[in-house]
């Protein structure tokens, strides 16, 4: 009975809420605004909301205001699926933004694809997400790209010739980064002198590091997560290895410095964006975010903001704003100036865009350079 009543109420409200000449454009967002990963969802939501507020202040898109319907999924894939179905079939949104975690994006994507509603994931890095279908896009780079970025950085900026690799064999992420690093670094004329491995959860890396020391590399590529990387840095310095350590966005945590301390000085990792980047687009974003939310934006907020921006730009280019047209316009996105760099959507609907390289110095992540794809 309870169900019947809600059904009736919802049906009634749906009828009232959808007049023939809609004056607003509805955009759906699914995020983990509660649950164990609530900070991800909240940051992304704030980024998206800020983008919409700014767009509406500029007069919306084609004279229509944008309305955001954001639903919480409590960090659960099945809730993400239900929320997406609701947005797509009940609220009839024009496009869906979300999710951060790949597991939830993968639950959402088939529904968006089936109903032919464009979906943009701000920060899911698993390549499988956009493989679901031609309506699924992302505005972040995928893992293989980071391997290439660091290879380029090592050979161009550090002038390294010999690099050692220490990979986490348990993580797809780490293995993927290592393989793409190897490929790109060899192509630019470098040499991988030794390839050692560990499993996440280990605490003693002395044997791997000793054999790395024997080969005298110019740098060591350690594309793991911050817990092990911190320990590796400490033990490497103790063994007298002074060369720079390199890594990917798995390093991006305050915990990194807590574990590794000063041993991490003279180390570099790739990331999505840096607050220290002095370009106008980054600084304007940080300024307006600070005024709106009284705090500095993290990477996820910037990605949420970018996802919305890319979507608006695509919508603006269409004639009738039909789903198919928006999809085509999204696929044609080229050199779009966003906070996290110039975004070009490639044929696999992934974003091709620059990554920033950050230097770790006394617990701070300093902006070092930008590497273009």
């Amino acid at each position, binding site marked *: 009975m*309870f169900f019947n009543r809600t059904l009736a109420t919802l049906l009634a409200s749906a009828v009232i809420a959808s007049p023939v000449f809609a004056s607003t454009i509805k955009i759906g967002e699914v995020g983990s605004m509660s649950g164990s990963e609530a900070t991800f969802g909240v940051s992304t939501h704030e980024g998206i909301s800020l983008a919409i507020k700014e767009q509406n202040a500029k007069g919306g898109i084609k004279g229509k205001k944008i309305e955001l319907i954001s*639903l919480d999924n409590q960090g659960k894939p099945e809730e993400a699926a239900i929320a997406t179905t609701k947005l797509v079939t009940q609220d009839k949104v024009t496009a869906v933004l979300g999710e951060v975690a790949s*597991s939830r994006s993968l*639950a959402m994507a*088939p529904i968006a694809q089936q109903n032919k509603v464009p979906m943009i994931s701000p920060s899911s890095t698993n390549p499988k997400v956009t493989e679901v279908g031609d309506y699924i896009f992302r505005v972040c780079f995928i893992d293989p790209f980071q391997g290439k970025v660091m290879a380029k950085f090592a050979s161009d900026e550090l002038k390294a010739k010999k690099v050692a690799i220490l990979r986490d064999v348990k993580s797809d992420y780490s293995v993927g980064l290592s393989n793409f690093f190897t490929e790109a670094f060899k192509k630019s004329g470098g040499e991988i002198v030794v390839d050692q491995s560990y499993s996440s959860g280990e605490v003693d890396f002395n044997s791997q590091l000793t054999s790395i020391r024997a080969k005298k590399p110019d740098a060591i590529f350690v594309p793991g997560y911050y817990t092990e990387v911190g320990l590796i840095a400490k033990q490497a310095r103790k063994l007298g290895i002074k060369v720079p350590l390199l890594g990917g966005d798995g390093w991006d945590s305050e915990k990194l410095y807590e574990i590794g301390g000063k041993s991490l000085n003279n180390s570099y990792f790739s990331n999505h964006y840096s607050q220290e980047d002095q370009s106008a687009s980054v600084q304007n974003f940080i300024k307006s975010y600070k005024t709106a939310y009284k705090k500095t934006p993290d990477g996820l907020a910037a990605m949420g903001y970018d996802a919305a921006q890319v979507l608006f730009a695509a919508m603006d280019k269409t004639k009738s704003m039909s789903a198919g047209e928006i999809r085509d316009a999204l696929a044609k996105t080229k050199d779009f100036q966003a906070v996290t760099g110039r975004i070009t959507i490639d044929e696999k609907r992934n974003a091709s865009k620059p990554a920033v390289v950050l230097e770790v110095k006394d617990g701070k992540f300093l902006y070092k350079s930008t590497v273009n794809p």
Partner: protein
Amino acid sequence: MGSAYKSEEKSTAAGIMSLRWWMLAIGFAWLLNYFLPDVMSPYYFQILILAGINVILSVSLNLVNGFTGQFSMGHAGFMSVGGYLSAYLTTQFVESRPELFTDSVTGELLATGIVIYLAALIMGGLAATIVGYIVGLPSLRLRGDYLAIVTLGFGEIIRVVFLNTDAVGGARGLSGIKQFTSFGWVYTLVIVTIFCVWRVVHSAHGRILLSIREDEVAATAMGVNTTQGKVRAFAMGAFFAGVAGGLFAHYLTTLSPGTFDFNRSFEVIIMVVLGGMGSISGSVVAAILLTVLKEALRPLQQITGVDLRMVIYSLVLIIMMLARPKGIFGTNEIGDLIRRKKGAKGGAT
């Protein structure tokens, strides 16, 4: 206990008589499977499917927690065993022999594909049963809270195992699972689960379970092998949890270890407690009620902009438990309540 005993005597007879009603119910589920999508929004349809999976979970857990009186907190673990195994099997098959699943010309699902899917579901259930047996045997020999602790630990261990198994995607999860699960299959299995649990509870074996719940010492004194009884109930509960996991995996088409953390086990426990420990109809009603409630509160979130869903959800639970500490149905079934009402009106007996 005496009164419960009497009412069960009656319903046992009714249960045997009504086998054809169960078949009819399955037929009705398939009728709805084809008819409902035309008249119902996909959103409500999806909620119904997930509610069905929750019904299987809560009814099977009720067999352990409600009827046998053992407190298991590992239902999510068994669900993940079944889900992962069955999903792994079908994805492997789809990859190596795609011609068994879809007609290359029309793109329609083939009967062989459905048979493989059902076989995978049963394999998942059996795997969960074996795991349940291994976990249950040592801990169920003891009395008290040991089972709760062991199953809670087991649930976490199995999650970490999947997190570190590359064959099923590790932390990235298993994706690209084919969507076999439909309304018809979910509700067929809901009916099968309710039927099996109903028949077990109202059989001689069910008497053993009830005697263990009421007084284990007395049951042992009467010559009941309590450990065996408990382990059997536990393994059967695990089987249906595994099947539910398989349904879930083939509905959502993606699995990740995080889906099966202890919060999911608690959700199912809440359904069992809210419905009434030892009431099958209670578990069914509570599972549907709680699944629908979460969605019914969504408009509120959209209006207020704050997610008050879980606050209200929790409030509803607290109020329910204050008003009806034994759950919605206590140890009664819907049938008992209707009969009692009739009896009261007629003034007979």
